[in-house]
């Protein structure tokens, strides 16, 4: 090819001269198929190639850098080395031309030491006369892998917040159900009903702080009118009333709260046992605790009016509680009288302090 140089210009002569000199990084003369492979991979199709707007990546597991380059491609280089990690152990994987014909035995795995410094030395030893690019990249990979293994070990010891998947279908379903439940709840109505019941059943005591004078008077008047009606019907009731007003104990019986239902069946039963010892505080506590847990019992048909339901519940409460304690008076009369007589212990501050 000497006569060719004479015909061409200076630049082309320089180019041809460089070709003959052959730097170390170029592929050995026998495997010029490396170039062929690369030209195919690069220009036509490579299944490991991932293209992005700025860069190309290589998804091949044996790639040192992860980028799609001429020097990084494990397919287009017959002499190649990587570092891979399996179950926390680092291996130096080396590929040489001699084994290129048998893919099953192509990669030689050399186990690297657990000691970071020793691993680097090992790489230097094994890849002694290899190009600097390969050695450098393998060492970088060793560093990165050891770093992430350290981090994984630390994370295992910590308690990380548990990640839960977002279930779109579930969220959508529950949102609809919530909407329907809200419209079925009739919140304001139920709150108003509850408050009116508490007012009427005297849960706020004798002189409640949360009511208008006129409204409270109206309620008391209505109650008096109710009582007078009762007294007209049955004179015996009067005696019962006076008896009750004298005896504090009766007022603390559960039957007083026939219109209310109890929250904490359990703690209230505790209170009942200590009743005789500490009447006042118990009454306060009981009055305080007369939060009504409304139980929309499905087994009762829909009530047409609240009064009936409360009567039924009071009946139920009385029949249950009657087992535990002897009643002071006949149950019928108690049921007829709706608004109970007042507590002897109103909700004023001075009683709480005592």
């Amino acid at each position, binding site marked *: 090819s000497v006569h060719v140089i004479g015909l061409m210009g200076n630049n082309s002569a320089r180019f041809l001269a460089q070709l003959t000199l052959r730097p170390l990084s170029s592929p050995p003369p026998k495997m010029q198929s490396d170039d062929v492979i690369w030209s195919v991979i690069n220009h036509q199709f490579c299944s490991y190639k991932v293209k992005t707007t700025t860069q190309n990546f290589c998804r091949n597991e044996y790639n040192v850098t992860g980028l799609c380059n001429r020097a990084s491609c494990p397919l287009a280089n017959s002499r190649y080395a990587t570092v891979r990690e399996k179950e926390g152990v680092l291996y130096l994987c080396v590929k040489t031309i001699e084994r290129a014909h048998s893919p099953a035995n192509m990669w030689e795995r050399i186990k690297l030491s657990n000691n970071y410094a020793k691993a680097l030395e090992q790489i230097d030893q094994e890849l002694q006369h290899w190009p600097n690019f390969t050695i450098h990249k393998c060492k970088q990979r060793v560093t990165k892998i050891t770093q992430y293994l350290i981090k994984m070990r630390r994370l*295992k*010891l*910590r*308690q990380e917040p548990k990640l839960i998947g977002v279930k779109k279908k*579930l969220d959508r379903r*529950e*949102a609809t*159900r*919530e909407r*329907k*439940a*809200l419209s*079925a*709840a009739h*919140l*304001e109505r*139920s*709150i*108003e009903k*509850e*408050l*009116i019941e508490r*007012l*009427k059943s005297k849960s706020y005591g004798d002189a409640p*702080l*949360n*009511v*208008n004078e006129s*409204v409270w008077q*109206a309620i008391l008047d209505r109650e008096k009118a109710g009582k007078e009606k009762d007294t007209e019907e049955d004179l015996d009731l009067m005696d019962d009333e006076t008896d009750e007003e004298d005896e504090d104990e009766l007022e603390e019986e559960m039957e007083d709260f026939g219109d209310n*239902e109890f*929250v*904490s*069946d*359990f*703690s209230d*039963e*505790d209170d009942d046992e200590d009743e005789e010892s500490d009447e006042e505080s118990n009454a*306060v*506590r009981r009055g*305080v*605790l007369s*939060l*009504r*847990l*409304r*139980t*929309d*019992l*499905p*087994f009762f*048909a*829909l009530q*047409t009016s609240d009064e009936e339901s409360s009567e039924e*519940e009071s009946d*139920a*409460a009385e029949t*249950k509680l009657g087992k535990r304690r002897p009643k002071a008076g006949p149950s019928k009369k108690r049921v007829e009288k709706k608004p109970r007589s007042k507590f002897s212990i109103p*909700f004023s501050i001075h009683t*709480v302090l005592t």
Partner: protein
Amino acid sequence: MPPTRFEPSQIKNKHKREQILQKIRKVKTQAKLQKRLALAKAEANDPEAKKKRLAENVPRTLDNMREFDPSIMTADPSSSNQAEGSTSAEAIQNEQAADISTDPFASYFTTDDPSIPPKVLITTSFKASKTTYEFCDELVGIFPGAEFRRRKKGKGFEMGRIAGWAADRGYKHLMVVNEDMKKPNAITLVYLPNGPTAYFKLTSVELTQQIFGHARATPHYPELILNGFVTRLGHCVGRMFQTTFPPLPEFAGRQVVTLHNQRDFIFFRRHRYAFRSEEKVSLQEIGPRFTLKLRWIKKNIPAVYNLGESPAALTIEKDDEEDAPVEESENKEEASEEQPTRKKTIPPKQDEYLWQWKSELETTRRTFFL
């Protein structure tokens, strides 16, 4: 010729077909309307008839067609349906007695001074955002004994450990507002010191500012309304909320906090009320509104997995039983004298779930758990 019916759907011309159908529809709706008006007129004079009609035509809703749950608490359990003979009155009373003795909320109902509000510690998940902090501000306003602290990150700041510290410092509750995608999405309510932990999904949060015509909250202790907690589990949850508020409300403040359970959704509302007459009360909404849905309940405070903990040192058991207790008691006395009165609440190593929501539990539309 006998009259044959010519179906409007057989008309091929769309415009004509539509016309005819509209006419038919109009006639039908008019007939229905006239019927309803006539009925309304008749019932205006006769309320008894209306009552009768309503009583006969009770609509079936999910709430009154609810699936039977044996854990529904009724006033008189012996009268309810008994599938087997095992649930006798005695057995029920034994159960109730057992419940009373193992009641985790007993301390709330036996306090000396019911006007002290229970202390609640409110915090968030790590690295919360502005919306969550705003919501926590509102929460601090709701609970009279509430305090807010920012959550720190790291190994020693797990929820179980924080619960332990809070319990030692006299807090009664720990409330952790969890955040996802810059929005609060869950609340974990821990009853201290040993109490159950409940995790609720939080939805439909509307802050005070967003509510049109909202009232202003005052520092009075609110009244409490707990509606719709029917089953045993519901009772537990209802009482858990009850314990976050002071036992003795200040009625002068006329504020009421409602936790209404409907179909397993707990709606939180806060109102200011005024009695206008015997039968009427007007409500003005204060404060935030949100909805909670129970996801699970654990028995104790949240666990702290101490992974990487070195195993306990080996101890050799002594053979002589007489000497050992004497020595131990001596050691204990010395130790108790040295230590101050601060206890150390240690979170458990493992979680124990009392109840967990699973989609397969909802076999029908009518199954509810609270």
